[in-house]
């Protein structure tokens, strides 16, 4: 039996307005890859940050080498050999690889100047230990590929002589081949007795690298299981917390006429290749795919954020091309974007103002606006969407993620577009709010809206969609209808990963 390096007991972490972690236990053994899994907002990254010393838990204790530790910031955790390999890269672009690895721990010459030669030598040694000697440690980080940058991150982590390494969604930005080489590295680290915490929600990866899995849901630990002792289905059920069919409600309704159709759509960046999709009124169409498959990019083409290189867009069978978002809105397209903070909401403005942001011209065709009327509209939507707030004059930044997303929805509902694109509509919001948003999407479809839904969470796409397009590296590789044999997470997941179509769809 391997030695237990790290133990966390009864960890509770509070954030304003929510319990991010509630009495969670976790332990890690030498030479083990322990996967933390859960939906967005389940608390996996929060737990990782508590272990790393980036967050202080309100309750509970962490034991390292059978010794209770209380970290005051990541630096103290680092000193014990607990290091993170971050999801977003924490490298300085225009200094050398070696300088990045030894940032703030630079070797110096007798004169007090940086000893580039020695740092480069040491960095080279680290790179060799990772079998990455092809990376020039003198070159600027900016010139490296994403995968190479990740290797630099790992080398940097290794330079601290770690006992515990935390990987937070490390494969999110990597291509398949790069993922393979990352996993090879993780296996090597494991053999050296390093304990690895691996935060991820990509189930396909788990059997490849994991030893044990801890499932979190809404900040509560559900279970820790051995990787072999658990099927994907059981995992999903534990993550979601109930039978999937109860979360997603879909009313059967008629699909009438094609609202939006694209033909061989391409963009300039090569992220969208010959995409032909269609959505009918009353239909919810899902687009599934891995991160980087081109789903968001497709939405951006439809909404006029990025220019179309070639191909056609038909709205109500009329050939139109949204040139810019304003244009798209005029054509009756609404986008509930992935990043509501960046694109969806004016966070510093009131709920009321955000609610009417798009429909302002519709509500007030004349020059003047009336605050009274704005408030009336906002109050109406607050009631209809059950936005939890004391006043519609509050700034949106004070709302929780779920309620912010409801304001985005209110904004579009008050404008009443015919076509709605949902890009990761439930990212970072809790399950209760998710269910309300699903309910709302269903109602919108029943009212005859055409809905395109993009999501990384397969259960969500499968639960809500009438039809699913599967995207892989910019192309639509398959289309699967609800009710078909292939309409399940295994076969859709496999196609997302591999990019191969199954049986050709008869109708086309």
């Amino acid at each position: 039996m391997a030695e237990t390096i790290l133990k966390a007991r009864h960890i509770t972490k509070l954030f304003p307005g929510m319990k991010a972690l509630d009495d969670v236990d976790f332990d890690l053994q030498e030479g083990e890859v322990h996967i933390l899994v859960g939906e967005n907002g389940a608390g996996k990254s929060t737990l990782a940050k508590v272990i790393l010393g980036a967050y202080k838990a309100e309750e509970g204790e962490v034991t390292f080498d059978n010794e209770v530790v209380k970290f005051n910031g990541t630096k103290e955790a680092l000193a014990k050999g607990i290091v993170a390999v971050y999801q977003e890269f924490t490298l300085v672009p225009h200094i050398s690889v070696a300088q990045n690895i030894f940032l703030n721990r630079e070797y110096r010459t007798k004169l007090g100047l940086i000893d580039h030669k020695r740092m480069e030598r040491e960095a080279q040694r680290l790179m060799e230990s990772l079998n990455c000697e092809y990376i020039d440690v003198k070159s600027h980080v900016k010139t490296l590929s994403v995968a190479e940058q990740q290797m630099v991150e790992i080398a940097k982590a290794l330079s601290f002589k770690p006992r515990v390494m935390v990987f937070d969604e490390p494969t999110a930005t990597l291509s398949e081949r790069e993922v393979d080489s990352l996993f090879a590295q993780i296996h090597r680290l494991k053999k050296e007795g390093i304990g690895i915490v691996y935060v991820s929600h990509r189930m396909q990866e788990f059997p490849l690298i994991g030893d044990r899995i801890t499932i979190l849901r809404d900040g509560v630990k559900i279970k820790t299981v051995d990787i072999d002792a658990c099927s994907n289905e059981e995992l999903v059920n534990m993550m979601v917390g109930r039978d999937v069919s109860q979360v997603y409600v879909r009313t059967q309704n008629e699909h009438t006429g094609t609202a939006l159709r694209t033909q061989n759509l391409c963009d300039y960046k090569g992220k969208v290749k010959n995409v032909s999709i269609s959505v009918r009124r009353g239909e919810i169409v899902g687009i599934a795919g891995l991160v980087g498959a081109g789903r968001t990019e497709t939405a951006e083409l439809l909404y006029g954020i990025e220019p179309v290189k070639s191909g056609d867009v038909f709205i109500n069978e009329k050939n139109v091309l949204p040139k810019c978002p304003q244009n798209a809105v005029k054509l009756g397209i609404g986008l509930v974007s992935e990043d509501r903070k960046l694109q969806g909401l004016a966070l510093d403005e009131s709920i009321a103002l955000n609610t009417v942001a798009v429909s302002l011209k519709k509500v007030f065709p004349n020059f003047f606006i009336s605050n009274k009327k704005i408030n009336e509209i906002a109050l109406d939507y607050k009631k209809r969407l059950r936005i939890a707030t004391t006043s519609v004059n509050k700034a949106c930044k004070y709302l929780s993620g779920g309620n912010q997303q409801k304001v985005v929805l209110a904004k579009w509902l008050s404008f009443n577009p015919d076509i709605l694109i949902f890009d990761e509509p439930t990212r970072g919001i809790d399950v209760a709010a998710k269910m309300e948003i699903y309910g709302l999407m269903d109602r919108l479809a029943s009212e005859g809206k055409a809905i395109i839904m993009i999501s990384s969470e397969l259960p969500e796409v499968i639960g809500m969609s009438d039809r699913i397009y599967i995207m892989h590296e910019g192309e639509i590789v398959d289309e699967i209808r609800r009710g078909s044999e292939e309409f399940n997470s295994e076969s859709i997941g496999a196609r997302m990963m591999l990019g191969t179509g199954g049986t050709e769809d008869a109708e086309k």
Partner: protein
Amino acid sequence: MQKNSFKQTMKRVPPVAYMLVIIIVIFSFMDSHYLSFSNFRNVLIQSTPLMILAFGQTCIVLTQGTDLSLGAQVSFVTVFIVFLAQRGIILEAAMLIAVCCTMLIGAVNGLIVAKGNIPPFIATYGMQNIVNSISLLLTAGSSVYFSSFTYRIVTETTILFIPLMVWVAVAVFVIVWVVLRKTKFGTNIYGLGGNREALALAGISPVKCLIKTYAFAGMIAGIAGIITLCRVESGQPIVANGWEFQAVAATLLGGTSLREGKGGVTGTIFGVLLIQIIKNGLNVVGVQSIYQNAIIGSIVLAAIIIDAVVRIRAKE
């Protein structure tokens, strides 16, 4: 292999250097006296104060900022040194005190920018006005005088036919270059512009770093002020108005990016020389000064637009 390394070296030459050569060739065709050692020396002397100031501005631009108070700091130094000297303080001591003052001004700039998370151009614009007012208050709006032999030592002693003041600029260049390339502080400056989170995660305080950088630029502005004083031999409250923008332009021309902590102080030399050579050349060939600003402005805009276009192309 050899060819390859030649290509690599060519790649490292900033585009502004080519522009410089082209412009020198154009001017030398337009006027046969243009290419002379004495004219070249003139350009060097004329560009020295701006050159020094631009080295400081480059450090600020590397942190994704601009310090608009640097010109005002130069003017202030000329005035303040004379002000102190008139009241009996030894000139050299007054110079030291003035440099300490500009370092302090820089530190305050850095503090406001870093702690208040205020866009640098706004914070330093405020400071520019404050410093300008102080200079005008100290002098009641006119030039002030204090005669000393020291000025001439700086401007007229020559080493290898080149005046001492140019060597001061060389020394400042070496210092800034070493700081940027060979010290932790310099590494952190690149970090401030490139990825502040990376600094914070490595246990470096971005706030302290920014304060240090602005103070460093302030110190360099102080040196530029001393050189200016020696050239004009008087305290002039508005002598360096607008230099901060010329310094930004020279920095950008030299290939330092306003966006991501990319570039360095070597390119800035070419940037300053380009601006100065155009000014000088226009004088030599007899273009009226009212057109000169428009021409220089156009060249700066063109350089920045070309840079932006290249960057956008590279992205696509």
